[in-house]
């Protein structure tokens, strides 16, 4: 009897750990939502929500081998005054239960992003089914539904295409940041820090992008690509950082995994290209004359990847010059990024957060007027770059031919 009681106690105690998912449903009764697009309502409702649902039979090689005939995903539209309303109303059109655990991307239309994103984040944060690792992006200049409806090649599932593009561009170019709901909410709630969200643009015609034609040609008429970082202030999109501004911001946020830097050398324009592949950014905020002052310290190691001029790569002086020029470019970009952010009065680098951590007393005085303080803030940037290798060659192959 005692044993039996013990068994039941053990079972009951494990309920809170394992609970939360009790109802049985077969995989074939679920509509796996891969991506959600949220736009400002065009009709009388507040939001237009689009759901990209996978059609399993058309993706996986089924019983007969090879994919099916139709497109791998189908997009359903719905509208409502709240996200939940739209989601529930969508079931009028969808024969299966919408299942969000595999949603890996949320696309927000630019129009809606400019109006504010707080409201739409709450249902995703609240729903246990929705993963907080879902990536958030903004559809630049377009509606989210256009981006969501595009068919893509290489990766059959459009959402994979988005995620992988974000990842590869982040690793190779360093002009975007992969941000998930958890990070986004963390940045919004953290005092003295504003989030940045990667933008996606649609090149070509949105109509043609939804037809199978888009994946049956070698040059698709519609393409999506990563472009820029959206600066958020107070939950609203206030502007975009583009190209080298983005790169400067990525350096500052210590998210740089790799990029390319080109500069003039020995009088020749854009003669050398280097690729930093390791970097560490150290930011500290101190007070100078009673005002906040940021010290930015960047260390990076780079490879030489291209040279359009002939010089002795083994000459220590030349190497020093290479290192200096690389540092200069980085420094310029970082400065530009800070200036751009100051223009938007959005502390996307988390300078305020650093004060909050290191000097909470001063932060109390500063926090109410932080946006303006940030805009006026002074800073010092130091970049140290280190030359590591020149690839599998010293001088360019043509250097001897000319002699």
């Amino acid at each position, binding site marked *: 009897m005692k*044993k039996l009681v*013990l*068994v039941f106690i*053990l*079972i009951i105690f*494990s*309920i809170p750990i*394992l*609970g939360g*998912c*009790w*109802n*049985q*449903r*077969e*995989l*074939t009764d*679920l509509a*796996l939502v*891969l991506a959600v697009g949220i736009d400002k309502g065009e009709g009388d409702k507040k939001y237009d929500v689009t759901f990209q649902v*996978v059609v*399993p*039979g058309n*993706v*996986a090689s*089924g*019983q007969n081998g090879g994919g099916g005939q139709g497109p791998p995903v189908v997009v359903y539209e719905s509208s409502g005054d709240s996200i939940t309303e739209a989601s529930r109303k969508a079931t009028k059109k969808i024969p299966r239960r919408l*299942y969000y*655990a*595999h949603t*890996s991307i949320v696309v927000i239309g630019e129009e809606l992003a400019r109006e504010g994103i707080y409201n739409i984040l709450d249902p995703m944060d609240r729903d246990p*089914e929705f*993963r907080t690792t879902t990536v958030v992006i903004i559809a630049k200049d377009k509606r989210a539904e256009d981006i969501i409806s595009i068919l893509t090649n290489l990766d059959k*599932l459009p959402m*994979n295409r988005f995620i992988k593009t974000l990842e590869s561009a982040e690793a190779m170019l360093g002009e975007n940041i992969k941000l998930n709901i958890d990070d986004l909410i963390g940045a919004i709630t953290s005092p003295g820090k504003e989030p940045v969200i990667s933008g996606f643009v649609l090149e070509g015609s949105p109509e043609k992008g939804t037809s199978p034609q888009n994946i049956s040609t070698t040059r698709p008429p519609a393409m999506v690509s990563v472009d820029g970082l959206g600066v958020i202030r107070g939950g609203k999109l206030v502007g975009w950082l583009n190209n080298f501004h983005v790169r400067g911001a990525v350096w500052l946020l210590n998210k740089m995994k790799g990029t390319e830097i080109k500069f003039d050398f020995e009088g020749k324009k854009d003669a050398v290209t280097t690729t930093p592949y390791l970097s560490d950014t150290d930011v500290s905020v101190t007070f100078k004359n009673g005002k906040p002052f940021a010290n930015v310290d960047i260390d990076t190691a780079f490879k030489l990847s291209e040279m359009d001029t002939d010089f002795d790569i083994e000459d220590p002086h030349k190497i020093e010059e290479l290192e200096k020029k690389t540092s200069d470019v980085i420094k310029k970009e970082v400065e530009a990024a800070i200036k751009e952010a100051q223009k938007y009065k959005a502390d996307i680098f988390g300078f305020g957060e650093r004060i909050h951590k290191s000097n909470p007393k001063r932060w109390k005085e500063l926090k109410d007027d932080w946006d303006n303080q940030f805009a006026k803030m002074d800073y010092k940037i130091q970049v140290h770059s280190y030359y590591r290798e020149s690839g599998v060659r010293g001088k360019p192959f043509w250097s001897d031919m000319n002699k």
Partner: protein
Amino acid sequence: MSILTKMLKKKQVQRKNDNYRQKLDPSKPEELVIQKDYSANVSRIEEELGHSADLVIRQINIGIVNGALLFIDGIVDGKGISEFVVETLMDKQISSREVDVFQYVMDQTVALGSIKTITNWNDLYNALLSGCTIILLNGYNKAISGETRGGELRSIAEPTQQLAIRGPKDAFTETLRTNTALIRRRIKSPNLWVESMKIGKVSQTDIALLYIKGIAEEEIIQEVKERLQRIDIDAIMDSGYIEQLIEEQTFTSFPTTYHTERPDVVSSQLLEGRVAIIADGSPFVLTVPALFVQFFQAPDDYYSRFDLSTSVRLLRIISFLIALIGPSLYIAATTFHQEMIPTTLAIAIAAQRENVPFPAFVEALIMEVTFEILREAGLRLPRAVGQAVSIVGALVIGQAAVQASIVSPVMVIVVSITAIANFSTPVFAMAIAARLLRFALMVMAALIGFYGIMVGLMIMAIHLCSLRSFGVPYMAPLAPFSGPNQQDVFIRYPFWAFKDRPKFIVKGNVVRTGENQKPKPPKQSSHKSDKLEENES
């Protein structure tokens, strides 16, 4: 409850005595003793054996005395009898009346190694029916019994159940004496004691109890003896009968006694303080006490190096778990926890299941039951038609079943990996336990998902911890946990560190490996190196 007890009570009928021994009335002692008239004795034997066709009676005459030679055909060494008994008896002709013929025959004629005098009927029947030759002489109220056991027997062959890549290749046979010999050859110690008894009212099966005096605990030996003596059954056909009659807990699917057909395994277990029970007619020898971890130890573990055997052992434990919870994980993940499956796989499974009409549980049940039928059929089928099973089996569990939209390809893989994993348990009895509990866990998974699997495993763990084998906790040395006894659980320690016998079985004589057994490179002596240098110069 009361109905049940009533039913049980009704069935209790007086057990009939089928044993010859009990048929005799102890109050008439003259019936127990062999008579002087040999022909009366012979006809009594004939009568009591029902004139059985295999009883051979040969009349002999040694000069002045008449007698008879009796044996059971088939279980005796016929050549030996004719050569060493009949021939020598016929050579001798005694004419003098002064000689004690009985003593003379015993001492000078019968050329057999083991010879005994028998005075009562009990011993006579025991000897006769176990293959001895009985010589009755007129005028003597006793008989000579000569050891002539033999006949057609299976010779020692390779093991068929517990195979090992490396290690001895002999296996036990159906003959008790051969089996004890196989062990005796391995342990040449006077401390290896063999006790014998007979179990089975009708069958009178010889049972041997083996242990090493000084290592095995007296308590355990006594307990085994008591339990064996308590057995009151018609016959022992296999050691499986004994196993089921002496185990502590019947209502469990886990084996609490260990059985093996390998003499090397039995010998090493005797050296760990266990007691072996050999039943005549069974090539499977029981050893007790048995522990849960023991069923994951294969003979190869000790014959190959410790790193290899440790990793293989871990593999075995993992495959036991796969065999136990494989299909239930599939059911739980596809019907309750779709978020646990990587997106691409989830889509792939969804696509495969698109055309399957059954829920995951029914699908899994169909496949598992099909496989079990196949396995059973493969076991029972006569060799000649055995191929048919593999051909049909490949159809039932394979592409054809998938194309018929009865199951999904993933399910086929799950069933196959489960089946293969199940075969990697070294002892079949433990594999069966996993096979049986798998279905229970599948039901739990279908009802409440991973939670159900956890509840099932927890109940299983509690049950396992409650089991005992001859007083030793079944889960030892895991529960109760004992650090120094982990030498042979998940990791098989290298032999130099493999110091102690399991301390929950052996209490006194625990050390099995001496000090400083770790192999080292030979020390470079300075003398030697000097010499080398000299040679070089």
